């Protein structure tokens, strides 16, 4: 069965902290995605990766960076967390086949105080 896991369901951090959100998929998928979800704004793409060490900016990359050292793992990094980064963060993966569906993790609700 397809599985995407995220390191934490809930996370509370302080302004200025460096935050790591981890995502792991066990499906050997080429593509991985990070979204943030805010009420009334839907899901907005932060970054995606189509291969190991490859990444592309999404619509709202400012304040974020990513790392993909292994195929199964995609990390989202908040270099210096700010209160406006309080949100639900969703990771997803898909194959390189076009079209393909995206498989989502359960989400991490991050609060920055």
């Amino acid at each position, binding site marked *: 069965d397809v599985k995407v896991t995220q390191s934490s369901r809930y996370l509370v951090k302080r302004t200025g902290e460096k935050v790591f959100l981890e995502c792991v998929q066990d499906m050997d998928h080429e593509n991985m995605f990070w*979204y943030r979800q805010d009420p009334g704004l839907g*899901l907005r793409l932060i970054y*995606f990766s189509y291969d190991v060490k490859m990444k592309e900016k999404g619509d709202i990359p400012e304040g974020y960076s990513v790392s993909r050292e292994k195929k199964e793992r995609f990390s989202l990094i908040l270099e210096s967390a700010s209160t406006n980064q309080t949100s639900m963060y969703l990771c997803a993966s898909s194959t390189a086949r*076009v*079209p393909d569906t*995206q498989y989502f993790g*359960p*989400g991490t609700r991050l609060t920055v105080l």
Partner: protein
Amino acid sequence: SQQGEEDPQALSIQEGENATMNCSYKTSINNLQWYRQNSGRGLVHLILIRSNEREKHSGRLRVTLDTSKKSSSLLITASRAADTASYFCATDAEDNFNKFYFGSGTKLNVKP
């Protein structure tokens, strides 16, 4: 923005009734997908429809696509309380078919 927009934002119906949600988008697409999200959870894929298809069925779900109007609809027939969730449409990007734009969703409440 290339994002799809769902309509209505919220919908409340009785169990057994049909629920219809609409999605409009702005640019040409190759594929459109519908996803479901239970409260506070990740999204689950429901159905994909290609731009050369007009209608697709999956169980109690029926999706239509009208590329001339740049719109799609999701019909859930004989709804159940367990269908209570948010529903999102996602359209692919012109420059990258692996990249999808999601709308803000329709929140469906099915009352038992």
